[in-house]
């Protein structure tokens, strides 16, 4: 249907406020940031210095630590989290499960907490001398782990915290995908004598591939942008061991 002349402006009018906001508070800052990256701040003014900042950045060892950490988190955390989320989603969808709502809700709950709140809780739990986690480690005969003060445990604590927060979110998305799989696929798989793992491998995973891809992409973006958690939990330390880009 052709719109009348007046109505043709309607979509633009509806979009105008949003476009203005994006232009002022998103596009302009991005471009300006890019411009600033070629300048140097001295004596209250910005002077154009070309690629110098980039050269300094690539000479800076902290940058490589940050780069390494970001990719380390990416390689470990994203697959672990998506795998866990998928497992939980499949388990919750098992036919005999009662209290599905409760399980779904409780695993999703961490997603809604504020970053500061959950980082503070984990800081107390991971506390080296007084934290509950180290108490349990010692109780089972281990040695106290310097969660915040040595490099690898600090990275582990960040991965654990992020996984705790986001696994339920990804699980819910995967659940939506699993619920959309036609049940007769499972029925015929059962008739063919497929067990739990075979059904997972040959029915569930292929059917929800796009959804798995979606969660992987969003989690990857999230991890690449990771900043707040290390900032609060470990302040990027020890010796920049947990710092990210």
């Amino acid at each position, binding site marked *: 249907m052709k719109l009348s002349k007046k109505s043709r402006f309607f979509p633009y009018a*509806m979009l105008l406020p949003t476009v203005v906001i*994006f232009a002022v508070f998103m596009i302009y*800052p991005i471009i300006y940031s890019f411009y600033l990256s070629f300048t140097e701040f001295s004596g209250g003014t910005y002077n154009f210095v070309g690629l110098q900042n980039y050269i300094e950045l690539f000479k800076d060892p902290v940058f490589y630590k940050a780069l390494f950490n970001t990719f380390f988190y990416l390689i470990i955390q994203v697959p672990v989290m998506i795998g866990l989320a998928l497992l*939980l989603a499949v388990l919750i969808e098992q036919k005999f499960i009662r209290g599905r709502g409760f399980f779904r809700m409780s*695993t999703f709950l961490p997603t809604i907490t*504020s970053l500061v709140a959950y980082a503070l809780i984990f800081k107390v739990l991971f506390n080296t001398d007084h934290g509950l986690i180290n108490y349990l480690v010692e109780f089972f005969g281990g040695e106290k782990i310097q969660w915040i003060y040595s490099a690898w445990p600090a990275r582990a604590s960040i991965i654990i915290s992020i996984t705790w927060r986001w696994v339920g979110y990804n699980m819910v*998305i995967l659940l939506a995908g699993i619920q959309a799989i036609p049940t007769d696929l499972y029925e015929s798989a059962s008739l063919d004598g497929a067990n739990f793992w075979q059904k997972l491998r040959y029915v569930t995973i292929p059917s929800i591939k796009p959804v798995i891809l979606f969660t992987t992409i969003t989690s990857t973006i999230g991890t690449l*942008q990771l900043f707040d958690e290390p900032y609060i939990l470990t302040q990027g330390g020890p010796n920049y061991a947990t710092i990210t880009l």
Partner: protein
Amino acid sequence: MIKKICVYFLLILAAFLSLFPFYFMFVSGTNSNQAILAAPPRLIPGDMLAQNFSVLVEKMDIFRVAFNTLFLSVVFVLLAVILFSSAGYVLAKYEFKGKGIIFGFIMVSMMIPAQVMYVPLFQMFVSAGMTNTYAAVILPSLANAFGIFLMRQNMMNFPTALIEAARIDGYTEFQIFTHIVLPNVKPALSALVIYMFTTMWNNFMWPLIVLETKDMYNFPVALAVLDGNPTNKDFAVILLATSIATLPILFIFMVFQKQFVAGVMGGAVKE
């Protein structure tokens, strides 16, 4: 049978691990600092709630902070609903020049880390003399691609026939939007409301940068400042403050669970 037990065991374990930190937080708010730092920490409610609260009120103006957080969240939600529903609607249901570019820009912006924008944004608000205002917190947050995406995905499924019927009945385009479309996408709108409310309630990095005085802080910033004080760190008080900041959002989640889940799913799965 063994299989059933295993599945239940794993699910209960997952639920326990998810819920335990919340329990720990609430319980710690009622215990003393020593009890939290003991080995093992006290995991049952204590009787220190009133005392912790009085210490907390001394250290931070919790009522002011609560008001700030609520005010920011409510105003942000109102603006976000108006902006994102209208933008999402025309992006879903109209064909016009530049639509592809605009939608593409909005989607790409989701991938750009917010940190990139902080320096120029801060300079902008400094030169406008608007740092330390509610507007400085709210305005940049309105450039939220997820909200627009959520609205567009949901409006895509709105029957075009209804829109055309209304057009024949003589409704203007704007009336169609307000009288026909909006009342019929209430579930999507409530998902948006809840998401945006949570986003602003938990907003941390940008308020930390742009807010300067204690009387403007929202909960996340006030909590970080409370935690940042290195002398006499009282974990009981910190965790009590954290509990108070978390309770409202927890309550909203309990009431609107379905919309929360629908919001997450709506963005991901298309029929």
